[in-house]
């Protein structure tokens, strides 16, 4: 019984870890915007919405309500942007032969600020650490807080050149807001795994590219501990309402070295109003101490049907093979998403996932996660 309770707490802690409020990649093209920075301050999406993004959230996305900060009750000076994300969750799961479990918990509480001084911006996120409820007695008060992002930004007058320095995820992959997505969990973009980085972004009319040098989190108490150092590169080219992108990464720790190469495709089918997104990454991992190596594969394919205003439906397939040539080591998942945006600032998201571990489809894991999301 004690173990079962501990397991429930552990699951709650995992799922309640604050997820970064990322861009919803499903909105690109589907809602008329061609790039993430159309709605977000951050060049690669995520975090605070800009004025256009807030307007879109009230008009296009929800069709009702005032998407501005504090519902328009407070007008901030132009040099200041504020926001917050609150999420609560209801989870049901059944893992293979285990008893089904149901639990509810607060999931996220993060506040955002951005101060703009000409081309320079100071960006800061501060929130509650998702592990706080499971913290052992006597833990230092500061460890209950987490700052997932804090960086200095530069943006040229035209917006064509951006530089970021500090703690954030460099632009890489599809950048899903779902912190349980394989592409995040298994490619070192999990909760609180933001590294310290220096990123240069350059964009043109129909393309954008990013190069970043990454320093594994040097302050273990700020997140998931020391992570990889290295570099990332991302290049996206748009063709009307579709895009292809390539990314590459070098990640080095004291135990291993990973080299990743991947491709991303996004295609908007105007006829049926469907957005297709796919990502495929191959990763070579070399173990420093044993000189062994393995090849890993991540695959993600998603079809999204937005019915605006108010609704979005998605079906996705995910595959993670941590060791391609090791039989029975992969996991595959089929996922259904239903998202409702009843009015500006509010989202309900039901994620259901059927997962086969190690190729065993006879005893799937079932996860149902209902999130209620409010952003200020």
């Amino acid at each position, binding site marked *: 019984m004690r173990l079962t309770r501990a397991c429930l707490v*552990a699951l709650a802690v995992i799922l309640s870890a604050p997820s970064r409020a990322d861009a919803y990649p499903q909105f690109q093209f589907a809602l008329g915007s061609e790039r993430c920075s159309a709605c977000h301050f951050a060049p690669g999406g995520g975090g605070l919405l800009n004025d256009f993004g807030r307007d879109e959230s009230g008009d296009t996305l929800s069709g009702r309500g005032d998407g501005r900060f504090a519902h328009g009750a407070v007008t901030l000076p132009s040099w200041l942007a504020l926001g917050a994300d609150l999420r609560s969750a209801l989870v049901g799961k059944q893992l293979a032969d285990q008893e089904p479990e149901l639990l509810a918990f607060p999931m996220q509480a993060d506040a955002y600020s951005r101060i703009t001084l000409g081309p320079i911006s100071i960006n800061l996120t501060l929130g509650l650490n998702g*592990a706080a409820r499971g913290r052992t007695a006597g833990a230092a008060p500061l460890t209950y807080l987490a700052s997932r992002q804090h960086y200095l930004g530069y943006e040229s007058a035209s917006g064509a050149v951006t530089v970021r320095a500090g703690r954030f995820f460099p632009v890489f992959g599809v950048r899903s807001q779902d912190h349980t997505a394989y592409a995040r969990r298994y490619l070192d973009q999990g909760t609180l795994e933001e590294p310290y980085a220096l990123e240069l972004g350059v964009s043109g009319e129909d393309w954008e590219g990013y190069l970043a040098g990454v320093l594994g989190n040097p302050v273990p108490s700020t997140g998931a501990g020391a992570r990889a150092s290295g570099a990332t590169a991302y290049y996206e080219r748009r063709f009307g309402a579709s895009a292809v992108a390539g990314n590459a990464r070098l990640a080095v720790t004291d*135990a291993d070295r990973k080299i990743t190469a991947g491709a991303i495709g996004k295609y908007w089918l105007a006829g049926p109003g469907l957005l297709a997104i796919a990502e495929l990454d191959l990763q070579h991992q070399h173990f420093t101490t044993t000189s062994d190596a393995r090849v890993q594969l991540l695959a993600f394919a998603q079809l999204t049907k937005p019915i605006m205003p108010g609704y979005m439906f998605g079906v996705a397939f995910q595959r993670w093979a941590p060791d391609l040539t090791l039989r029975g080591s992969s996991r595959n998942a089929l996922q259904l998403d239903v998202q409702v945006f009843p009015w500006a600032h509010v989202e309900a998201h039901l994620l259901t996932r059927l997962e086969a571990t190690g190729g065993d489809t006879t005893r799937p894991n079932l996860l149902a996660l209902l999130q209620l999301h409010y952003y200020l």
Partner: protein
Amino acid sequence: MLSHRGRSTAVLAALGLAAVGCDTPEDRPSAWSYVHAAIVRPGCTTAACHSKLGSQAGLDLSTADAAYAVLTGRVCGAPEIPGSPAGNLVLPGHPESSRLMYLLRGEGGAIMPPDVPLPDAEIAIVERWILEGATCD
């Protein structure tokens, strides 16, 4: 000489075969440095769980040395001290008596990791490491 299409087909076929997987857990090292880097670190040390920050249930598995000490009750590189580690998480040479194996397989009620259990192939590698003495190599 293969044509461009032939090469593409060969590459795809190789990828397809690789995706099926033909190696067994016995083909992988049972060294602790491999077990930690390949299985424990990616599977157990997410921020909210057994990272240094999260340390759920008082277990910090974030580094190979810290995890080894927590699981076996021994200090990596130091002379072995006879006796069971705290909680019997890992009893060297005895996976059948090691609580870690029960947690990984979900036998007895709880399962770890609680959201995405490890595949049997990875559990088998951990089991072999214990069976072969759970050394810190």
